[in-house]
């Protein structure tokens, strides 16, 4: 017996999965560069969110056309991958369609896979047309430079090819066609190959089979470099996303400590600050780089699908300002990748590269254009909050660099002096009563 195919298959599998695991490890390491944040509360609400939003795609279908097609591709892709299990067993043990022994059910299964494959193929073609022919505006904003655009198309091509290979593989499988069950679509493709001698046909079938599984392995490893990573990360991201009302911004605990000290009438104002005793650096307020963000924010940067739903509903972006919430997420991810590569290149230590998220990626002009309206958060199909990153960076600008726009400084001085954003006397607060 010839074991060569089995051995080659096993090697391909080990390399494919091994490389994937290596990248997942890197991914986790990069995400952990973020600050810790307590997400242990509200477990049942979080689980519900994950089931509804990631599994149930509840937010995708708010835009019905894209949502419907996306559900098809998603369901199709997951279900068809049951077939991959059979391919792996066949590949390793040299069997052929090992599951066909289960009888009628096999026909039903493969039959539905074939139907799904066609539906996925159609949906993916429509997606391609929306992007490249109809040119929906949100796929052509300025942050959609060549790579993000190509990435999106590569994913669509991948899926087109994989689905086609699956159907060709079935159509050219003589014994499968002879079974006459489950070939609901492929029986119509089979006649195309009817003039081809059986030996060649077998060769085509084997090639399609090999390309199909190799394609899947390549696709698996492509994820890490692509916005397609969302098919995995949507789950943790929807789980760990905020469960508070959208309007609630966290109160910085480090600030609370200092405020309480300042307000405490018993505190000795001349006492040496506590930091002097511990050797710690005083805590930095807000974020100027990715490592100042928390790990959930970093996770969401990797989760972002670049769909642009956020940007297409952002009041600042809609009125021509530079701010684009999608760009905030893409910048965060790109900078995090840069930091990760820096660590890899320097034996596990980050070496200062003179760059940071603020300024080198995200400009002040973008940050100050945000109205904190939460439209981006509401729209995001995978529960990302670009707003939380914008806010952390504003905090850095104001509390570490005193770099607020002048009018805002005036507003804040007014609040400090007379308890209102305008320069009115606090004693006049009740004047409206007699006007």
């Amino acid at each position: 017996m010839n074991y060569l195919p089995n051995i080659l298959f096993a090697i391909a599998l080990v390399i494919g999965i091994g490389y994937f695991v290596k990248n997942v490890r890197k991914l986790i390491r990069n995400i952990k560069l973020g600050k810790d944040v307590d997400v242990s509360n509200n477990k049942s609400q979080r689980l519900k969110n994950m089931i509804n939003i990631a599994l149930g795609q509840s937010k995708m279908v708010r835009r019905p056309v894209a949502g419907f097609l996306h559900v098809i591709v998603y369901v199709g892709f997951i279900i068809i991958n049951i077939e991959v299990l059979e391919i792996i067993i066949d590949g390793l043990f040299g069997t052929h369609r090992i599951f066909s022994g289960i009888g009628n059910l096999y026909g039903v299964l493969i039959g539905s896979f074939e139907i799904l494959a066609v539906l996925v193929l159609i949906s993916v073609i429509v997606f391609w047309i929306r992007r490249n022919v109809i040119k929906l505006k949100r796929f052509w904003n300025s942050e959609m430079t060549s790579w993000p655009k190509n990435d999106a198309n590569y994913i669509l091509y991948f899926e087109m090819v994989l689905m086609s290979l699956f159907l060709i593989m079935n159509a050219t499988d003589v014994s499968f066609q002879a079974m006459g069950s489950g070939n609901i679509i492929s029986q119509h493709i089979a006649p195309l190959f009817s003039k081809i001698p059986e030996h060649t046909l077998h060769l085509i079938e084997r090639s399609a089979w090999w390309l199909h599984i190799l394609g899947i392995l390549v696709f698996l490893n492509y994820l890490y470099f692509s916005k397609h990573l969302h098919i995995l990360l949507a789950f943790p991201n929807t789980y760990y996303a905020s469960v508070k009302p959208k309007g609630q911004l966290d109160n910085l605990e480090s600030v609370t400590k200092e405020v309480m000290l300042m307000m405490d009438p018993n505190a000795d104002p001349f006492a040496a600050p506590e930091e002097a005793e511990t050797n710690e650096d005083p805590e930095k307020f807000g974020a100027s780089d990715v490592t100042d963000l928390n790990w959930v924010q970093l996770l969401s940067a990797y989760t972002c699908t670049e769909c642009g739903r956020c940007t297409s509903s952002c009041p600042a972006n809609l009125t021509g300002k530079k701010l684009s919430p999608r760009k905030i997420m893409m910048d965060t991810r790109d900078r995090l990748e840069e930091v990760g590569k820096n660590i890899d290149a320097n034996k596990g230590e980050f070496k200062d590269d003179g760059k940071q998220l603020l300024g080198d990626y995200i400009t002040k002009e973008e940050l100050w254009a945000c109205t904190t309206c939460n439209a981006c958060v509401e729209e995001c199909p995978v529960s990302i909050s670009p707003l939380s990153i914008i806010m952390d960076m504003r905090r850095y600008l104001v509390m570490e660099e005193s770099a607020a726009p002048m009018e805002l400084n005036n507003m804040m001085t007014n609040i400090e002096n007379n308890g209102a954003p305008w320069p009115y006397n606090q004693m006049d607060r009740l004047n409206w009563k007699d006007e």
Partner: protein
Amino acid sequence: MTVKTMAEFMAEGKQPEILFWVGSAGSYDDRAKKITRAFVKLLNSANIEFAVLGAEESCTGDAAKRAGNEFLFQMQAVTNIEILNAYEIKKIVTACPHSFNTLKNEYPSLGGNYEVLHHTQYLQQLIKEGRLKVTNNSFKGKRITFHDPCYLGRANEVYEAPRELLKELGVNLVEMKRHRRTALCCGAGGAQMFKESEKGDKDVNVLRTEDALQTNPDVIATGCPYCNTMMTDGVKFKEKEADIKVLDIAELLANNQEL
């Protein structure tokens, strides 16, 4: 106009039913003061024992927080909480969604725990309980569109109360293309109210006013003093101020009763 301060209630040894949090805009801004007065008229007509803090009230700190100044925000919050807790306040009603959001969501972890309602929620309650009555119908059939304030709608998912009140008035509620959770911001939130906007091709309030104008309304209704200013400016920019009024829900109710 009868308005008692918390200090006065305290002196009488009494506790009001609610504290009306007026907010900075409601206290000083000429347009917003009218909303404040309209709401007070409604409270008085329903015989509600309410108090204000008067000169003891200070900015909630929302704008400072969203400008990035967490220090100033927490200083404001702690000062306000000290006063609110000293008066043993349990229930706060405010006509400003920004104060509403901050008091309700951001004060608790700093020690301020109160039941906080937006004035539209409270007015709806009063009508339901029969304490406030809608007897006239001067807005019946009028085309009115409601602009959802971000900090009432998306931020806290209060979409029904203002609409229920409009229904009470028998108006013809015409929704904008973007409404409820997809409503477009008026452009004032996140401290934008206090600064020039960044370079762009349009002002946000103008875009939102265009949304509203598409519904061909007699009145643009809001529930936020900042939205009110932004929409009023937008309507002026479009030179429509002769035909279209921008009114707070409280003003609609008060005007309807000719208070």
